[in-house]
């Protein structure tokens, strides 16, 4: 490959920054954007509060060219982005918004509403507000909550931050960035987005292919490489567990994985589409998936995380899995030679283990369209409503006949076993019976026989069982 393909290019402070990882001893391909910024003399506004995407103090904005040849600005946790992932994008930090003398409208509103106390979360809050400012004019309370759920503040109790958001986001997103947009777009377009970026130094390899075929070829060659699709999980291995990852294939830039294909009987969702986009796009087709995603992580995490990533990591508490199973979703796997479709139920085989072969990648998730007789619901119980992993989650699917007799019922639970698990005894008790409160109440104790969950930091086993049991009743109530 050509030598310049080890160069990662992005815009910071209005200029293109080129980093050649093959000739560099300061940064490695798994240096996070947070670490990078804090190593610079003029970007120390970005703060490390947790280095695991759970506090938002490190929030930055990233601008990219969208399909309408405009820039879209989104908030991200800089602690969960590796430096090469900035390739072809504009990185915006709190320093770029304004100075203490000349403040951006969101900064000014934060000051005049007394929305900072210790100030350590503030630059992150400001950046989430900036993304909100650029995207939604006069946001409502729900939109403000959604934009800021990923930013923890221990001092203020949030009320003044909400007031600042309400007050600041009233100018149609117009600000100093609006003026420079054309220039930034042309700079971004000058950056290579065609030939695979291959960082190969003595100890580490990091590839960014731009086509699926290139990615599959790389996967064939480097079969032990970690696949990074978004990377909210992979980043934790570096920032929290301090693992050294030798080989990464970053498939986040592949357009073919960001497609939505509407078939006659199903919708195929590309594995690389961000969870935030899925949440917005499928509000009508798959409302229960969308509603689950509204309490999935935070906006910063959903902007980054993908469906392929969430499924591929096969976590027992992966939030999307029970509902996708209830939707009877399948995973489409590809290799250079083959493409195959496996029901999601069969795809995850054990704790963090899947059916995927070493030369394969998840291409998409195929969800059958729902007929009007099928009822689907998703539930998630967590200690905190937002930005928390589920204690118990559930995806339920129900088919009734005209006399309310249960033709089929599938009860998928997350958090109750090493993988997402069905309440099979409860299901068989219910099938053939009438969907009425009495039946459901008779079925509820059977849940206890279906599961033997763990006690852990999130809940006791007893608590989990009660939650699982109660969700069945809640499902019944929600169908009436």
């Amino acid at each position, binding site marked *: 490959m050509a030598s310049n393909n080890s160069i990662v290019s992005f815009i910071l402070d209005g200029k293109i920054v080129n980093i050649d990882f093959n000739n560099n001893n300061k940064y490695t391909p798994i240096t996070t954007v947070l670490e990078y910024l804090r190593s610079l003399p003029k970007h*120390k506004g970005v703060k490390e509060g947790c280095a695991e995407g759970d506090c938002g103090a490190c929030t930055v904005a990233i601008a990219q060219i969208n399909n309408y040849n405009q820039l879209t600005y989104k908030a991200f946790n800089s602690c969960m982005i590796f430096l090469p992932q900035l390739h072809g994008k504009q990185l915006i930090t709190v320093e770029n918004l304004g100075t203490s003398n000349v*403040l951006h409208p969101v900064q000014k509103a934060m000051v005049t509403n007394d929305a900072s106390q210790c100030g*350590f979360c503030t630059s992150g809050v400001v950046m989430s507000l900036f993304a909100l400012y650029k995207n939604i004019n006069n946001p409502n309370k729900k939109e403000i909550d959604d934009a800021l759920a990923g930013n923890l503040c221990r001092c203020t109790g949030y009320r003044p931050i909400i007031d600042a958001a309400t007050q600041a986001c009233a100018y149609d997103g117009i600000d100093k960035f609006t003026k420079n947009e054309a220039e930034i777009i042309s700079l971004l377009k000058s950056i290579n987005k065609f030939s695979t970026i291959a960082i190969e130094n003595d100890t580490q390899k990091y590839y960014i292919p731009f086509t699926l075929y290139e990615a599959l070829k790389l996967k064939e060659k480097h079969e032990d490489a970690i696949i990074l699709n978004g990377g909210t999980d992979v980043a934790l291995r570096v920032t929290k567990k301090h693992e050294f990852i030798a080989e990464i294939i970053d498939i986040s830039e592949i357009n073919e994985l960001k497609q939505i294909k509407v078939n006659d009987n199903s919708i195929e969702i590309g594995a690389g589409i961000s969870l935030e986009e899925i949440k917005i796009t499928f509000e009508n087709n798959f409302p229960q998936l969308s509603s689950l995603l509204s309490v999935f992580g935070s906006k910063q995490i959903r902007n980054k995380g993908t469906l392929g990533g969430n499924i591929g990591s096969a976590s027992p508490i992966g939030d999307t899995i029970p509902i996708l199973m209830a939707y009877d979703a399948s995973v489409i796997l590809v290799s250079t030679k083959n493409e195959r479709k496996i029901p999601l139920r069969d795809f995850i085989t054990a704790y963090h283990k899947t059916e995927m072969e070493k030369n394969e990648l998840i291409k998409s998730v195929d969800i059958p369209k729902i007929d009007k007789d099928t009822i689907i619901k998703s539930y998630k*119980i967590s200690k905190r409503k937002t930005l928390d*992993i589920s*204690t118990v989650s559930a995806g339920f699917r129900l088919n009734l006949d005209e006399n309310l007799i249960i033709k089929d019922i599938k009860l998928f639970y997350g958090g109750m076993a090493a993988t997402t698990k069905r309440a099979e005894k409860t299901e068989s008790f219910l099938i053939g019976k009438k969907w009425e409160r009495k039946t459901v109440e008779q079925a509820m104790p059977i849940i206890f026989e279906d599961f033997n969950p763990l006690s852990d930091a999130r809940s006791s086993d*007893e608590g989990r069982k009660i*939650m699982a049991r109660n969700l069945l009743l*809640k499902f019944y*109530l929600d169908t009436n």
Partner: protein
Amino acid sequence: MKKVYHESGVFHVSGEAVYIDDLSINNQLLICKIVHSTYAHATIKSFDLSKAKKIEGVHEILSYKDLPAKNITGPIVQDELILAEDEVSFIGQGIFIIAAESIEIAYEAERLIKIEYEPLEPIVTIEQAMEKGSKLNPTQTMECGDVEKAKKESQHIIEGEIKNGAQEQWYLETQISVAVPGEGDDMKVYSSTQHPSETQTLVAEALGIKKMDVEVETRRMGGAFGGKESQANIIAIYAALLSKKTKQPVKLRLSREEDQIMTGKRHPFISKFKIGFNNEGIINFYEVDMHTNAGASYDLTMPIVARALTHAENSYYIPNAKISATPWKTNIASNTAFRGFGGPQGMLVIESAIDKIAYYLKKDASEIRYKNFYGIDDRNITPYGEIVENNRLYSIWDKLIKSSEYKKRKVEIDKFNKENEFFKKGIAITPVKFGISFNTSFLNQAGALVNIYTDGTVLVNHGGTEMGQGLHTKIRQIAALELGIDIVNIKVNATTTAKIPNTSATAASSGTDMNGMAVKNAIDKLKKRIAQVIVDEFNKDKEQTLSKIENIIFNNDYIFDKINTERKISFAKALSIVYKSRISLSATGYYKTPNIYYNKDKQKGRPFHYYAFGMSVSEILLDTLTGYVKMLRTDILHDAGKSINTNIDIGQIEGGFVQGVGWCTIEECKWDAKGNLLNNSPGTYKIPGITDIPDDFRVNLLEDAPNPNTIRQSKAVGEPPFMLAFSVFFAIKDAIASIGNHQIEPNLNIPATNEHILLAIEELKKK
């Protein structure tokens, strides 16, 4: 006065505010990593540092054998090893400290260190400590009246138990310190500490140098909440030890997980109580036994116990009381200060007891609360003998009951609960009375140094530290008001031990009270000096109607004679005259809180300068199937005296309340049997987020409530609002109770997580 924003606001929002991790230190900066114990209790049979020391980029690894002075430290009682010797006593205890060129190298070195442990059985819980008789300190008991006699005379006696969990401070900025060596023994330490003087003392002791050699500087902390009152010290000690050894600057910043594992939390308590009362619900006696998990060492446990004792009766007059507290020693990280400092734990028990009386008598708990409030002229002596003066419980109650429409909403809630099977609402009103002053009387002193420059600008130094609470903002306002000049000409300097010696921690909500007075004292001295010169100037060439010093006024950037107002000179111009007259424009100030004393043996005295009062009404909606709680509305009326800065005070109230709600609801710390903290990262430890605040949040300050004998008649506001969150806890309990038609008291402890709420509902339904 026009609205004054936080003095650092514009720096916070632009990223320009400098925290310790942002300091530009030279390129010789080394990074420190602590190698800590992974066993709660074990002997260290052997260890091997040789491989780790060989790694390129590792400059030093110290064990206890390499320390230059004593291997013992601690804020009050010195019982903490700086580095563990042959036995470890909690998970997170430092064993070695590494100085390396980068954190990655330090991690690599840590992986190569071999430690051979011989595990011993740990004590993790209060119950285990009781079983093994592992007391940290003898039980402290406070008594008043005659409890035994009262037991015979009470119409009703009931008993109960209530527990509260630990709470992690979760300041956004983790513990951090940078030590920079100078000439000779000099050591400059930048520390995120609430107590620079103590950090200075303990660094000096650990390094075997003198206090004059150590300067500790704190510009600002990214949050502290008590967590950096004593537990910032060890971080500074480690950085300074390695800095002394390597003769290079050393930075130690804990990762979030390290911080959660290694540092202490709010003390968990288990308390048993017995309470006697009449048919009206008026309390005759109260007997309470509090037991707390102190962790592995003393730290601040004893003053925390003292505050639990002196707040055990909250706002209620109790004629006969026996209040005891026992700290138990266990193998977890030593628990420490956290906003409220034992007060919340003490107050939780009496609030629970009152709730229990209400269930017993089938009355609304608010009625029992009101009936037992301290009286204005009688029934106003606390169990420790202090008279509750300037009691504002009734004026707050009257206003809040009306403005919150408590009674009307209570009826509506009952109706809602009758009509809804699975969603239940609850409401509660709870009061706070909080004593202001350090329980340890001698700590109630503060110093200041005010420098006026000839251009008319003023640099104020004082011993308090800024952790976000707005102390420096208020000090700036105080200085501006006292000097009669524009606030833009006043700056508050970073806190440093080189300017103000022998300070107390910025804690016990006392920062503004004490440092504000000390600053005023310095300014009073300066004004006197300036006024003398200006009087002389005014009186030059005059024989009659001479200006007198007592008539000189400082206002609006001018100095004038209030009798002869045409005699007027600008502040800046006056300074140049004062300077040329060879009069010092620098003065120190000092303050000690008057009329406070306490006899610890008798547990009697007047420990508090005054009391802060507040009340809160909260209404919640509970999903009884999932345990989710939605806070519908909270009304708070709080007494901040004559507020110096209303927006800052409201910010403290809202923030303190939400932090309290976190403790009462979603913040949970669990340890496994081996002493591992399970909730050791933000992935499993959940502080309130933006959706965890009341939908309708109404916070007001009590109006027309000047506080006699404090700086500008204000009141301390840092800690008291934390306990306003009890209204949420008891509202949740109220909602659960509605399932059983309020006939059965739910068994609910703190934290009321959705899990514990569901378990309480289960239990209630079985009864």
